[in-house]
């Protein structure tokens, strides 16, 4: 144990002295506030834009009094122009559609001019509904029929039944993405020191020095493993703190989080910390195992590049297609972290899922330990040329 701590001390001193490792550890987490706040701002802008667009309607003719009353009642943002002017605006993407009158002599026929990809006709349908109702009522009055009795034969009202998940869509989205960014930050910040401590050490010729020490190869690699894991955990914790701060700032600044609790619960923070620790052990072992097999620093970096994607994508895809956690899924590394964290954020945390995640990750960590210890006993790996 003493030998492991001696190597750990030596490795930590080297990592602290290495600017690139420190940059990776500190700089990558700094991107999390940019991403969380930036994405929140983007969503906020899009939602505001959509709301504004939902009120816009354009006409290629002068509105009559009735039509004016209807657009006033619906508080629509009306643009009037000639057919050619509005056609040009439609082409330029300034408007999504415009309404013109039929030129075949039918006074009550309206035409919606739009591109096949245009959206936002709901506002026109609302306008049309109101106008149609007025005209129908006029006809009924002319025929001595009470319009209200005739037209209100059926009515409806909306009863919105949102689950907490549905109403907190943006909160879920940002918190889960924050975890994915934390995982990515850990992965990126782990690959460099893992490469440096293995392939880098061999390339620099210092591996021979360390192997002459009266320390077992097993203890050398465990010391290195612990050092990389400690830095990975530090990156993860720093990222988590920055993510929480960013979520709080976003919650206070953007309307999309209005009346919603964006702050992670104590349980979610604990789960996030557990994931950070487990993931740091797992990814450090994986990076060391891969980098140790590489002959040069560059080769190790290339070999580790796919890991950065593998660490991020299963969780992201699972989140995007709304995969629900199951016992089997909670055993799959990379995927299980996002699913368990998602359950925690949604208040659906299943203890069996958490235990499954812990057990499966521990098994993988033990496998990684065995693999890297075996590698460090192999002359083929240590003296690969």
């Amino acid at each position: 144990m003493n030998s492991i701590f001696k190597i750990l001390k030596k490795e930590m001193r080297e990592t602290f002295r290495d600017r690139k490792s420190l940059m990776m550890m500190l700089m990558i987490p700094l991107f999390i506030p940019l991403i969380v706040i930036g994405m929140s701002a983007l969503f906020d802008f899009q939602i505001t834009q959509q709301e504004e667009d939902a009120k816009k309607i354009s006409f290629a003719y002068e509105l009559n009094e009735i039509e004016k009353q209807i657009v006033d009642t619906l508080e629509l943002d009306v643009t009037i122009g000639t057919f050619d002017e509005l056609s040009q605006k439609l082409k330029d993407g300034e408007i999504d559609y415009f309404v013109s009158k039929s030129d075949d002599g039918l006074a009550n026929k309206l035409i919606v001019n739009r591109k096949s990809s245009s959206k936002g006709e709901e506002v026109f349908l609302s306008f049309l509904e109101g106008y149609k109702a007025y005209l129908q009522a006029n006809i009924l009055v002319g025929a001595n029929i009470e319009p209200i009795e005739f037209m209100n034969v059926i009515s409806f009202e909306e009863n919105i039944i949102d689950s907490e998940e549905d109403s907190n869509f943006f909160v879920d989205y940002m918190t889960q993405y924050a975890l994915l960014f934390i995982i990515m930050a850990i992965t990126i910040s782990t690959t460099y020191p893992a490469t440096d401590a293995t392939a880098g050490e061999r390339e620099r010729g210092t591996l021979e020095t360390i192997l002459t020490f009266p320390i077992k190869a097993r203890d050398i690699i465990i010391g290195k493993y612990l050092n990389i894991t400690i830095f990975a955990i530090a990156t993860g914790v720093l990222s988590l703190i920055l993510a929480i701060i960013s979520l709080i700032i976003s919650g206070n600044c953007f309307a999309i989080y209005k009346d919603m609790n964006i702050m992670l619960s104590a349980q979610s923070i604990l789960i996030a910390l557990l994931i950070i620790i487990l993931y740091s052990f797992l990814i450090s072992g994986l990076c060391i195992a891969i980098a140790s097999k590489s002959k040069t620093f560059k080769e190790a970096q290339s070999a580790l590049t796919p890991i950065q994607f593998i660490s991020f994508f299963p969780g992201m895809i699972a989140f995007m297609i709304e995969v629900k956690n199951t016992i089997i899924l909670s055993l799959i590394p990379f995927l299980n972290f996002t699913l368990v964290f998602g359950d925690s954020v949604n208040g659906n945390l299943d203890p069996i899922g958490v235990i499954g995640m812990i057990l499966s990750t521990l098994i993988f960590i033990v496998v990684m330990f065995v693999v890297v210890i075996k590698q460090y006993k192999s002359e083929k790996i240590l003296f690969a040329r």
Partner: protein
Amino acid sequence: MLKVKDVRKKFIRYTKSKKREEFYADDGISFEAKDGEIVGILGPNGAGKTTLLRMIAGILEPTEGTIEFDDLTIAKNELEIKKNIAFLSGNTKLYNSLTGYELLMMCCDIYDVPKDKRKKRIEEISKTLKMEEFLYNRIGNLSTGQTQKIGLARTLIHDPKYYVLDEVTSGLDIISSQIILDFIKSEKKRGKVILYSTHYMEEAENICDRVVMINKGKVIKIGEPDAIKKSTKTTNLRDAFFTLIGGAYNE
């Protein structure tokens, strides 16, 4: 006393036609080195010197044979033996981000040098190897000679009994080389066992009590330099070596 008994080391290599082939870098090497003796390991590049010294230092494991240090073997007493070995090669690199002092303190920690004796020990070695001027500079900023001195100092910090030195003077200027050679001679007087591999035959002739000549992984001659010269009817070890292998181009 160091005893190397019939040591063999097998490696894998690939032929031009990418065929996997086993070969012995060292093939049945045996010799002894007594306390207070400098034994030179001589041979051309690829003769198996570095592999042999790495096996003696416990970095590589022999495929066959045994290496004994006062009746202890690496296989059974790895850590105990490593605590008594100083291994230094011309290829061994140090940690550039540390200062010489930090590296030596780290080695004190690793070799369990008592805390109250560490500073004094570093000062002594620093004075012996004339490193005071650059001891507190980062190793990455030092010259080759200065780095090699720090490397040698690293191996001495725990006052080892066995020195395994692999071409430690290659690439050094004559002053740095001489400081190291003088140090080796002084350690011999203290009863240390010193294995000294070099390309420079004159250097070996100058400091070695006995030499082990190796070619293609096999010992071709063991003896005192004068005895070898006499038996090969040559005036220096360089010519003696060529005579033993049948000429410079007989490879």
